[in-house]
């Protein structure tokens, strides 16, 4: 590897003085107070109406930030899922299937606009239901969800440009199951391209985060979307399995863990359903010695602590070039020490609540395995709220490739730090995983960015940035991170068949 010029060491001087406040001064609370307009009870959204589940069963959804109950959510059984599919098929065979692309697009534009109108309300609901910091739901999740609808709306009458030399047609009814980490945004990633391509949809949100999906039903009503084009059924794994395996689902799209993705693939092995799978990841975030280190540290923090690390493409394996490892780690620890962990609704909060007790237990167990296997743990010494599910930002150094924390997806604010010496070693270590969703590269050299991007076996490569998303940018993985893409021209074509 061509060595980057070694900077002459600066003359020794006392490190700049810094002010250490510790817990001396508390920040005043700065809660977001907009009304999330939550109902006490949410029914299923089938055929354009909110309908009670046939079983009459409801399950509570709580706020992971304080464990308070938010609402009761209708539990969809097999009969409800079937009703949803019948209604979606009827819509596909009827008005929606016959509609011109230009008209279809206008409905999707309306959805984007109505979502923008009610953005703050949705952001607060999202944060209360899922635990993510309000600044993320307000500045990222909801605007990006609207952007996905806006982007795909414009495709609806331009599908002839998607597949050169071929005409395309919708699959029919698409069954979609989404995770709890970006509830509304994942809904948008799924529904927007499906509708643009002319499909109809049965979508199931995750059981811990159903409220914004069901609130989205209200937006569909306001938009006047024909009944049955989008149907939303709530519930847990059993409901999800019913959605994935329903005979009327011509295509299924799943975002979630690799473990569940494999179960779905097995359950559909005897069918001819089209599938796209967006599964887990264990992304390498690679810092070279010529990287702008302060900027890189911000990128590391964003890469692993964004959304409490509940991100399939999170930069959970930090690979640092040995010559700067000590510096990067020191800077990182200082940066972590000023992260604010706590009330998700507080506008100053950097890390909100872990989505569920179950996930908190999983993170805790994996972190324990890191300690047991001999990695060195650093944790932010912050106070955590008495109620709710929280986990301290955690960094493990001295991690080897065989440690569980370097191999398994933790899906929490836990970073594993490994080092490398050469470009080749960085590539080898980064690719040494069954996953292949994303990777990050930090360097000052454009040619090295492109070299790394060529060699990394990952569907998305971020250079001098991390966790960037855009409706025009295809997202999806290699290897056990799944197949198919979401976003851009490539993603949209996965919602079409060639005729």
């Amino acid at each position, binding site marked *: 590897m061509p060595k980057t010029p070694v900077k002459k060491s600066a003359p020794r001087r006392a490190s700049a003085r810094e002010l250490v406040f510790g817990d001396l001064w508390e920040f005043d609370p700065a809660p977001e107070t907009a009304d999330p307009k939550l109902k006490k009870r949410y029914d299923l959204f089938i055929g354009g109406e909110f309908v009670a589940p046939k079983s009459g069963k409801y399950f509570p959804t709580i706020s992971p930030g304080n464990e308070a109950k938010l609402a009761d959510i209708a539990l969809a059984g097999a009969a409800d899922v079937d009703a949803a599919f019948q209604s979606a098929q009827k819509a596909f065979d009827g008005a929606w299937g016959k509609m011109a692309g230009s008209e279809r697009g206008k409905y999707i534009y309306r959805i984007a606009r109505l979502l923008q109108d009610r953005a703050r309300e949705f952001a607060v609901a999202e944060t209360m239901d899922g635990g993510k910091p309000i600044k993320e739901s307000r500045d990222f999740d909801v605007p990006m969800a609207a952007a996905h609808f806006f982007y795909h709306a414009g495709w609806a009458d331009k599908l002839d440009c998607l597949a050169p030399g*071929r005409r395309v047609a919708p699959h029919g009814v698409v069954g979609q199951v989404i995770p709890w980490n970006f509830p509304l945004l994942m809904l948008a990633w799924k529904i927007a391209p499906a509708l643009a391509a002319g499909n109809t949809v049965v979508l199931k949100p995750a059981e811990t985060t159903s409220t914004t999906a069901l609130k989205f039903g209200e937006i569909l009503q306001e938009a006047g979307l024909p009944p049955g084009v989008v149907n939303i059924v709530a519930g847990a794994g059993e409901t999800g399995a019913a959605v994935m395996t329903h005979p009327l689902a011509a295509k299924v799209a799943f975002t979630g863990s690799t473990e569940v993705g494999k179960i779905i*693939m097995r359950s559909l*092995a005897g069918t001819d359903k089209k599938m796209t799978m967006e599964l887990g990841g264990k992304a390498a975030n690679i810092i070279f010695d010529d990287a702008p280190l302060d900027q890189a540290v911000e990128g590391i923090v964003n890469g692993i602590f964004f959304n409490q690390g509940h991100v399939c493409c999170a930069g959970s394996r930090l690979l640092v070039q040995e010559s700067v490892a000590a510096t990067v780690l020191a800077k990182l620890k200082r940066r972590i020490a000023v992260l604010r962990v706590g009330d998700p609704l507080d506008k100053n909060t950097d890390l909100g609540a872990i989505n569920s007790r179950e996930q908190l237990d999983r993170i805790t167990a994996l972190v324990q395995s890191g300690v047991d296997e001999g990695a060195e743990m650093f944790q932010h010494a912050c106070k955590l709220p008495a109620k709710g599910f929280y986990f301290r930002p955690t960094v493990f150094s001295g991690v080897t490739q065989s440690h569980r924390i370097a191999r398994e997806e933790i899906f929490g604010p836990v970073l594993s730090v490994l080092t490398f010496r050469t470009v080749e070693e960085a590539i080898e270590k980064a690719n040494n995983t069954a996953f292949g969703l994303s990777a990050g590269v930090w360097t000052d050299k454009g040619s090295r960015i492109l070299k790394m991007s060529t060699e990394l076996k990952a569907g998305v490569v971020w250079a001098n940035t991390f966790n*960037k998303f*855009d409706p025009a940018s295809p997202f999806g993985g290699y290897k*056990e991170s799944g197949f198919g893409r979401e976003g851009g021209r*490539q993603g949209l074509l996965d919602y079409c068949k060639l005729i």
Partner: protein
Amino acid sequence: MASRLPITKTPKCYVGGAFIRSESGRVTALHDAHGNFFANIPQCTRKDLRNAVEAAAKAGLGWAKRSGYNRGQILYRLAEMIEARSAEMAEAIALGGASDAAAAKEVSASIDRLIHYAGWADKFAQVLGSVNPVSSPHFNFTVTEPMGIIGVIAPDEAPLLALVSLIASAITGGNSVVALASQSQPYPAIVLGEMLATSDLPGGVVNILTGQRSEMLPTFATHEHIRALSGVANADERKQLKLGAAESVKRTRLQKSEDAHDWFADSAQGVHEIRELIEFKTTWHPIGA
């Protein structure tokens, strides 16, 4: 003049650039359409498959890095090799009972198919890739990359043309291939191996096995280094292949053997066939001083 006894050929499989018999030592007798003994065909095993995957893995890295222009020339060279020996290939197809005219037509179509894909080798990336207009200061672009090793499962129908179509769509995109030839008509695949060997295609990029589907498919399904399956299978086989594929999130592109296929049609070729066997990689490159 005393009549001369001709030298008959021992059919061998083309693996890693060499001609092999099955490690099992087993063969299947192949008869012509009149029931006369023709030759013994290797009856490959899952161990032969594993060896072939190893060869494909070794050769695949270099093949993936070849330029599209170079891959195109090699595909063109393969077409040249078949054209020059098209009479021999036609005989191999006629062995299975096809008329001379039908056999000649299948050979011609196979050659033309290779020419079609030779032309795609340095173009598909332009058609399938993109520069994406994102709302941040990044040059965001999507390129195609090979998936890796593709398991090709050829049908009995059009034993040469289908096999060539399935192989060509995979290797044009930079993948390497382990193929299972038609079970009932394996001989055209044996001859194809001999032509591949003289085509400039690096040994190991295409490996062709013969044998029983029922013995080989389970390993095609579960071998983790095979990243995608492309071919034709019946309902039971498809289920078996997809079940195995789930274990390593393997991509499957399986057509139904119960459906009629027109392998001669223009729709049986093209850039969208290549698309089925490539990955998309999107890079966010910063724009700034």
